[in-house]
């Protein structure tokens, strides 16, 4: 009898432990991010200030925007190594156009079209139509685009003379406006969660309370933090707003549209996807075009923030973007992943960069630490899949 109850006791404890372990496993990146933020807040007084966090959010946007596109690419078991060079080329093309007198309102969309759509469609064409490995095609484009940027500028930087252009990367939405925007968004988010829960209940689908609570807590915490930071320091930076819109569009596309479904299908089983009537060539071409356009946009924002473009802008950005996606839990094998994870991944990398700089860690060490974290994240992912 006592032996039996012992066994039962162990069982219950074991179940509890499993619960906790699963919770940690499911939210590992998020927990790491929170721990890192708390740690840095204690380690350096300058970290948890509205000013620093506002700047940090602005720095994250560049990689963040590219990483949203990279999530889609990796989701279909692809890769795009050319994003960094596209950033450089688009920065150069846009600033050069303005130098030749093209107004900002024309130069920006023209750059997105020529550089973004152009390069993306080219990459997508070879990858989708001729089944050439994306690694090779985009590796080639990495060199080609960088070469074009250097050729166009003859290797030197391009200054910006426009008054409007710097606003894209440097302006702020006034605090009053910002608080209204944030409150409206928070209300909408809460409403959508409630509606989802209700609909699930109506269809007799069990609601995962743990997931719901985590999502709710993250959302409320995130909005509260954003509210605090942006209302006490100048308002929401314009690039952050752009990033927020793109991230939301990415999440929505993957969760709730035909196109999103097709990406998961394509990444999960390409043959089955084709035999299910999915236009594989078209879908792939769109994905590679989307990431190139997003990279071009990131290049424009970067040039605007720096008030000028160097042909070497964006070097190695592909690595940070891929790292953000992988740290965020998207599988390199394709078929599974989420943009929300990628955003957390990008934040983690951003916080890490910012924190290490604040603490005065030598850049060389920063590289090493970043590399180790990427390896750790992938190892963690693989271990989890094994169970």
């Amino acid at each position, binding site marked *: 009898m006592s032996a039996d109850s012992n066994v039962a006791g162990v069982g219950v404890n074991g179940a509890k432990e499993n619960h906790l372990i699963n919770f940690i496993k499911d939210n590992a990146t998020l927990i790491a991010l929170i721990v890192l933020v708390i740690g840095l807040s204690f380690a350096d007084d300058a970290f948890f200030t509205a000013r620093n966090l506002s700047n940090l959010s602005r720095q994250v946007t560049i990689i963040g925007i590219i990483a949203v596109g990279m999530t889609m690419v990796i989701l279909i078991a692809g890769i795009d190594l050319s994003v960094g060079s596209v950033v450089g080329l688009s920065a150069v093309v846009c600033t050069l156009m303005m130098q030749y007198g093209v107004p900002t309102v024309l130069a920006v969309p023209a750059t997105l079209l020529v550089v973004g759509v152009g390069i993306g469609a080219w990459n997508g064409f070879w990858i989708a139509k001729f089944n050439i490995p994306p690694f090779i095609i985009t590796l080639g484009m990495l060199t080609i685009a960088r070469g074009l940027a250097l050729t166009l500028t003859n290797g030197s930087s391009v200054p910006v003379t426009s008054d409007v252009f710097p606003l894209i990367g440097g302006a702020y939405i006034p605090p009053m406006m910002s608080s209204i925007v944030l409150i409206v968004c928070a209300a909408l988010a809460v409403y959508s969660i409630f509606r989802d829960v209700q609909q699930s209940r109506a269809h007799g689908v069990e609601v995962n309370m743990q997931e719901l609570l985590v999502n709710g807590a993250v959302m409320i915490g995130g909005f509260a933090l954003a509210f605090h930071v942006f209302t006490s320091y100048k308002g929401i930076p314009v690039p952050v707003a752009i990033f927020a819109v793109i991230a939301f569009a990415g999440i929505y596309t993957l969760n709730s549209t035909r196109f999103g479904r097709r990406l998961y*299908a394509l990444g999960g089983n390409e043959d089955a996807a084709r035999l299910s*009537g999915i236009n594989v060539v078209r879908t792939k071409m769109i994905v590679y075009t989307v990431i190139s356009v997003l990279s071009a946009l990131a290049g424009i924002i970067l040039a605007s923030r720096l008030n000028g473009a160097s042909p070497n802008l964006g070097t190695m950005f592909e690595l940070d973007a891929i790292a953000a996606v992988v740290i965020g839990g998207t599988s390199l094998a394709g078929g599974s992943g989420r943009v929300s994870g990628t955003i957390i991944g990008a934040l983690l990398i951003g916080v890490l960069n910012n924190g290490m700089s604040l603490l005065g860690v030598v850049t060389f060490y920063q590289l090493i630490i970043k590399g180790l974290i990427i390896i750790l994240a992938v190892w963690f992912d693989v271990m989890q899949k094994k169970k």
Partner: protein
Amino acid sequence: MSEVVLKMQGIIKDFPGVRALNNVNFEARSGELLALMGENGAGKSTLMKVLSGVWPYPTYEGDIYLRGERVRFANTKEAEAAGIGIIYQELNLIPGLSVAENIFLDRQFTDAKGRINWNQTFAETQKLLTELGINDIRPTDLVQNITVGKQQMVEIAKALSLKAEILVLDEPTSALTDKEVKDLFRIIRKLKADGVCMCYISHKMEEIEQIADRIAVLRDGQTIGEVTPIADITLDQIIARMVGRDIKDMFPKVDFTPGEVTLEVNDLSVTNPDMPGSYLVKNASFVARKGEILGISGLMGAGRTELVGGVFGAYPDQTTGEVKLNGQKLEIKSPKDAIEAGIALLTEDRKALGLFLDKSISFNTTISSLETISSKVLGIINTQQERKVVKEYVDQLGVKTPSIDTVIGTLSGGNQQKVILGKWLNSKPDVFILDEPTRGIDIGAKVEIYKLLNELVQQGVTVIMISSELPEVLGMCDRILVMCEGEIVSNFERDDAKKEAIMAYATGSA
């Protein structure tokens, strides 16, 4: 009576939330072939994994005895050393290595310095093959260049080279041609004579009748009834044990008068991408009518899959010929075109070509008809509507699952197949082509699928069914095409179709 070599007693194996094995008891003797029968999901494969040390002690309960001695394997190596050899459904050979290298993988004969003695390795391999009476495989052949049937022989030779006294064969004939099956049976009979104890897992009653000595039936993780000599049990009794009920009518064919021609295929050819100038399908022409089930019979590799794949636009670059639907010529350049024209194809290889294994039932059901549950403009999916549609198919087809959000990879083969059927029904096809729709699924699910085909036919759908199981073709089809070496060689009406005649055409001997 020969010695009891293997005895499994009270085996219980739990997985999270499921009891896969629930008190399994049986014994097998030397020199006999014990058939282990049961529906998919009955626990046969789990049982074999317990036996082979894949699930080591103490992840299961109960005892395994070899020649009266209790054994508790910690891993597969120990089981191997104890003389247990297992030939899995999916062969475990390395395609790019030779037969000899595969057989003596990691056990090659070496000299004192560790250099491999290839001559001895090849000679030992030859000896093994000769002992087994296999004379059409050379030790130096690359595994990728020999047929699946021969690869299986290599696996058997490998198991025997490991001094296996107990040989487990897990559905060994599922990918073999009739001739290869004959060869396999010849070897099995020889091994029996040599005193090897064999456990043979299979669905196929005909085979069991031919080679089994005794039968053990598993259902829901339990052995049902005693181990029974084949002579003392009828097929109906076996089936009754397997499904827990009598199946009165295995093929519930409903007669229905076929209507006008819907699908017309003229001179369809599919070239072989691996061998330029040769054809997988050659000048195939046929028609299919509204309200009939058209069977396509033939041996494996006869070009049946390629024929329907060609119609479906699966290989647009290799396919020539004309496809008409309801009198209209179709331009099919991709499966998408075919689906839009009203053709559906349920593929033979469920895992590789049909399923998104780590996605939900919902995802798998709606993926080929997302247009019907989403907005025209931005393609925004109406989740409510999706749930409703999926729920309907799950209920209609009797998919056994806790929820429509369940990952499909966790379902049994029969339930997976039902979900795929739902997916294609949801695309509302006029012509529904099914390539081996009942392969690897249990009898209960098979009958449900046959009934569904009847319903479809009554609704005016044209059904085309490829099947390697002759009783199924004879039992369910109104008309039967027979293919041989890429060509349609014969067309039988239901009443004229005889097993022997079909086989004669399929093997090219008619």
